[in-house]
């Protein structure tokens, strides 16, 4: 078990290494002077010089990379070209809305999507099944911000149930927090429901055809027990996997959703950084998002072993 975990962690290192290299080279290999690209057309030579120094662009490429990686390990993600503040501080200040939105979305999606998927597979071929499939195709097709504006138009402007935008930290009281985060969560959750319901339905369908399910039914177990204890349990691995893979979708979705609902999170920070060409911030957000993705998928790999004794740690 311990060996397996170490092996998984070691396998994640080159992945993160490549992400870092890619993010590093993306700026350096851009045609033209990176400092001029960041500073824009109106930059003075002093500003260019300041940016070059901030990014260490005057050193040879390999030295730049080593220094940069070294700094990363010390928690130094560079300084924002625009505000002059350390990037890590900017990110820390914006973490809460993003984490809140990601968590509420994942929780709500799993609560809705897993039962939907189970029912769709159980009532395979019926109207309910078709409805679930329709939702899942819709979830993949309608852009998050279109859903967002439909939600605003219906629930905020017509019905006046929720505020159009804004965020309240959970410290201000659960009611306030939920009231503000509800619409963004509903918006983002459709995509995730689509993803999870689809995989739940598919893996349930496969398993419901297995012999042991017939046995369980033949020995007179109530259908609820057959579905929950025998079938759903064996679907846990693909469902958990897709939740991990879908995390990248959540990050992308969060960027858009925060923009629609004006939440002061990492997504807003990124979009503002892109518009201002504040590359150190963009770079750090990409690294952080990828790191979280890799870590979550690592945890899922480890969870397999706990969930499914058939998977041996080899």
């Amino acid at each position: 078990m311990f060996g397996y975990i170490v092996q998984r962690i070691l396998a994640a290192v080159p992945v993160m290494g490549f992400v870092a290299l890619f993010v590093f080279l993306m700026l350096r290999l851009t045609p033209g002077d990176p400092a001029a690209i960041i500073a824009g057309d109106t930059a003075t030579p002093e500003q260019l010089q300041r940016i070059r120094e901030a990014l260490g662009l005057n050193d040879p490429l390999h030295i730049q990379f080593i220094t940069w990686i070294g700094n990363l390990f010390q928690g130094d993600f560079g300084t924002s070209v625009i505000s002059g503040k350390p990037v890590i501080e900017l990110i820390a200040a914006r973490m809460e809305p993003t984490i809140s939105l990601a968590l509420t979305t994942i929780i709500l999606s799993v609560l809705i999507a897993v039962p939907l998927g189970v029912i769709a597979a159980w009532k395979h071929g019926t109207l309910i099944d078709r409805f679930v499939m329709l939702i899942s195709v819709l979830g993949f097709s309608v852009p998050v911000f279109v859903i967002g504006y439909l939600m605003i138009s219906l629930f905020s402007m017509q019905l006046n149930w929720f505020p159009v935008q804004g965020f309240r930290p959970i410290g201000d009281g659960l009611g306030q927090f939920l009231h503000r985060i509800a619409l963004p969560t509903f918006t983002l959750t459709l995509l995730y429901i689509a993803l999870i319901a689809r995989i739940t339905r598919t893996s349930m369908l496969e398993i419901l055809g297995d012999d042991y399910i017939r046995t369980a039914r033949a020995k007179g177990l109530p259908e609820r027990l057959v579905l929950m204890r025998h079938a759903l349990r064996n679907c846990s691995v693909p469902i958990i996997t897709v939740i991990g893979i879908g995390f990248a979708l959540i990050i992308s979705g969060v960027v858009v959703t925060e923009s629609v609902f004006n939440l002061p999170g990492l997504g807003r920070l990124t979009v503002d950084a892109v518009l201002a060409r504040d590359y150190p911030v963009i770079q750090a957000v990409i690294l952080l998002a990828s790191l979280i993705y890799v870590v979550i998928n690592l945890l899922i790999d480890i969870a397999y072993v706990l969930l499914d004794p058939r998977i041996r740690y080899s």
Partner: protein
Amino acid sequence: MTDQTVFTPGDGRVSPLDRVREIVFSSPFVFIASLILAIIVLSALFAPWVVPHDPVRLTPAQRLKPPSEIYWLGTDAYGRDLFSRIIYGGRISLVVGLGAAVFAVASGLMLGLLAGYIRWLDAILMRMVDGLMAIPNILLAIAIVSLWGAGIWTVLIAITIPEVPRVVRLVRSVVLSAREEPYVEAAIAAGSSTWLIMRRHLLPNTIAPLIIQGTYICASAILVEAILSFLGAGINPETPSWGNIMAEGRIYFQINPGIVLWPGIVVSVAILAINLLGDAVRDALDPRMAKRGIDR
């Protein structure tokens, strides 16, 4: 499952035209989806003859007008006709969708064949693929656009790069299973060159899955383009695209929600239609894949 066995006469080959007809008429949904797509593609192609107004002409006196007989969907904040802009916007989306599908499939195919067939390269390429897949696609795309500036080519490249890893993985897995087949082993034993084996024995196996993947990439690229434009990291608003029409309409959402909602509906319907078509193609070309429900 609904897959029915299709018996084909003669040598078992179906002409491509029959295949297309079979797919289009496979269900009413798919038929409607094909029809909608055809309308969108044709109106974008022949936009100058279809639109009632110049999509870029500013008429400040007519700003933010509600739908009327002159302006079917109303006007935007600069008095430009929304309907005409949406028709023209289809051009960008279709170019980006098709372009991303072609480029991603072509480069993914090449890398996937190499990864599947050349062992030492496989390890390196797959780490790169894992790395690229760990970066959320929107973040990657907006970072590229912010560095390289927002032209149609930059946007196309920014959208294509995050799609490549999935194609590489797909091709690689097809190649890995195909190379265990006796006919490939026989070709190796007979001394065929690596290039010949790839082209004659491995490549044909990848065609069906790649057509399917290509349609999904097309849908996803249109979606990402809309998101990029919406975030302000897309094509310059002077050239209308579905995303940047919505982006411009955002501040006026409370006054005229149509500026955001109409292009939003069109882009959703277009993507939905392509996805449905992709599912139909998958069911027709690869019933086994359909049965497993594996896609995207």
